[in-house]
């Protein structure tokens, strides 16, 4: 393989590893999407699940398959291809780590899924105590996490090899690979919380070695992981926005420094903020809740930096194409190109999604929406539109690139149609969820009429709207899966581009500190110790007797 090819083509063996992850991701999309459709039907009050299937079982299938499996597997497929494309082909050892990670994750997923389908693990995707699952479910999740560590290590080692080979060259490391490494490091640090909870609390409890567990500690360890999980979903979408989209629209990356700085800020502010999910938790002191709320608000800084960077990249390109006036450049963007249009809808959804997130994290105001279906509406905008539509937009060029096929014009147009359908369905469903939440409708409940309670009658029209929106979304999922199948096996053979943007000539030089992982990791660890040490000591030293496990349905 020539040097040029080596820098622009992903090695076939790496492509196979990436595609293995992507297949699992899209199988999860089909099953998880079907479970979501059943849920909105049940919540409409017009449908009862057949054959003894439980609502909470379906809810767990939906959450675990879409929130944990679709995301993690797609992200890993995308990251493997990205590192191979920008840092170079994996060594046999690095690729072996990738395969070991893949099989551990796949076996773990299968084990956890079987337990959920047998109704032995209807503990929702948050899976903290006191709801108790079969030990095989926890073991399965452990394998998923350990597998992601092993696979992630392979990607980091390839990046480290690039840095070693280019030491002293004065070059900044490839931006896309750098971003992958940031995301993996955040994932390693975040998953430590859930690993501690599963290994020392949930597994021994489920196996009967211990009778009771500390519920507040279990929840706190979950949310230590759980909020960073949100950024593990989002950062790959940001990778596409920062690095891929500039090339797709024919423009340049606005600033390499800004992109790296925003990723490092996400790294340090994603983990020490989990307590903002526990603002109504009685066992945590208000001071520490306030401190973590402040740290949460710090995430707004890199978020708005990203927003500015995107607008600036669009404006520079639009003006280059002749766009005049304050917003004339906007019309010049390639609206018919699914590789741009589909992620763009995701970007738009992040405006109301981010705004809702600020309300969720606003301490006292959290009482307004806590445990209401507003929260479900919120994360269906952030993860299920912003992140997922960006993944789909990326899949439209990544899959044919990896399989040696091409995105045809008709598939491109179908992709745009699916994204419009998604936007319509999600606007209906998510808006209805937000409004119903504000008037008190709970989330995670299979009751629709609440025994004829007067207040519940106000929620019914919104629940029917959710069923309408959810049905439209399921149709969009079927279209997306059709496109994926065509791109993987049936589209015409050819060469699709893996678009990687170049930095704008006025982007400035990138300070070396932005690539100094040691410095940022020390700040991250210091912030975590500051934000979590005293709350966890408080929880352990003042906790009531632990709880037995419950299986309620």
């Amino acid at each position, binding site marked *: 393989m020539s040097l040029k090819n080596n820098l622009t083509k992903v090695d076939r063996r790496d492509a196979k590893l990436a595609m293995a992850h992507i297949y699992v991701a899209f199988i999860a999309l089909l099953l998880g999407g079907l479970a979501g459709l059943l849920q909105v039907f049940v919540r409409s009050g017009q449908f009862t699940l057949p054959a003894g299937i439980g609502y909470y079982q379906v809810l767990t299938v939906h959450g675990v398959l879409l929130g944990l499996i679709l995301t993690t597997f797609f992200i890993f497929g995308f990251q493997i291809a990205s590192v191979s494309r920008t840092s170079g082909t994996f060594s046999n050892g690095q690729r072996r780590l990738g395969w070991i990670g893949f099989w551990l994750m796949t076996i773990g997923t299968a084990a956890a899924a079987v337990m959920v389908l047998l109704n032995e693990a209807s503990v929702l995707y948050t899976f903290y105590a006191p709801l108790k699952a079969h030990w095989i479910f926890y073991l399965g999740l452990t394998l998923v996490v350990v597998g992601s560590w092993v696979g992630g290590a392979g990607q980091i080692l390839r990046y480290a090899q690039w840095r070693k080979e280019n030491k002293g060259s004065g070059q900044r490391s490839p931006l896309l690979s750098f971003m992958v490494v940031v995301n993996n490091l955040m994932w390693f640090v975040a998953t430590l919380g859930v690993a501690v909870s599963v290994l020392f609390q949930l597994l021994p409890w489920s196996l009967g070695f211990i009778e009771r567990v500390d519920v507040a500690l279990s929840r706190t360890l979950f949310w230590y992981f759980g909020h960073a999980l949100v950024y593990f979903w989002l950062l790959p979408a940001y990778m596409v926005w920062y690095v891929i989209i500039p090339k797709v629209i024919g423009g340049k990356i606005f600033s390499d420094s800004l992109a790296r700085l925003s990723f490092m800020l996400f790294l340090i502010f994603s983990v020490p903020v989990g307590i903002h999910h526990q603002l109504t938790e009685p066992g945590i002191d208000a001071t520490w809740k306030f401190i973590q709320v402040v740290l949460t608000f710090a995430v707004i800084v890199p978020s*708005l930096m990203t*927003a*500015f960077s995107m*607008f*600036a990249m*669009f*404006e*520079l390109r639009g*003006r280059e194409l002749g766009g*005049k*006036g*304050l*917003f004339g*450049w*906007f019309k010049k963007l390639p609206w018919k190109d699914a590789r741009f249009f589909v992620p763009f809808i995701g970007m738009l959804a992040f*405006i*109301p999604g*981010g*705004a*809702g997130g*600020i*309300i969720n994290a*606003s301490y*006292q*105001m959290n*009482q*307004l*929406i806590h445990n209401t279906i507003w929260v479900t509406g919120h994360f269906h905008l952030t993860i299920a539109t912003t992140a997922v539509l960006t993944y789909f937009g990326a899949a439209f060029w990544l899959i044919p690139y990896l399989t040696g096929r091409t995105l045809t014009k008709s598939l491109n147009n179908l992709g745009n149609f699916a994204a419009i359908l998604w936007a319509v369905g999600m606007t209906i469903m998510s808006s209805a969820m937000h409004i119903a939440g*504000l008037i008190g409708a709970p989330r995670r409940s299979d009751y629709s009429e609440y025994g004829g309670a007067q207040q519940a009658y106000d929620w019914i029209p919104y629940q029917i709207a959710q069923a309408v929106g959810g049905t439209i979304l399921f149709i969009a999922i079927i279209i997306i899966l059709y496109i994926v199948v065509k791109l993987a096996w049936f589209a015409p053979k050819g060469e699709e581009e893996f678009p990687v943007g170049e930095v704008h000539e006025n982007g400035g030089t990138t300070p070396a500190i932005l690539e100094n992982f040691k410095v940022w990791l020390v700040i991250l660890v210091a912030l975590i110790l500051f934000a979590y040490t005293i709350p966890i000591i408080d929880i352990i030293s003042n906790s009531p007797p632990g709880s037995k496990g419950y299986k309620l349905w």
Partner: protein
Amino acid sequence: MANKKKSDENLKGSLYAVFGVGIIIILLWVYCFDLFINRF
């Protein structure tokens, strides 16, 4: 003429757009804060 050309090369649109996003966030926050004050 020179000034007009300059205005087409700036990032004024991006600046307004980001401020627009900020205003949407603040308006939604104020609406929910009003609900919160009325309810609690």
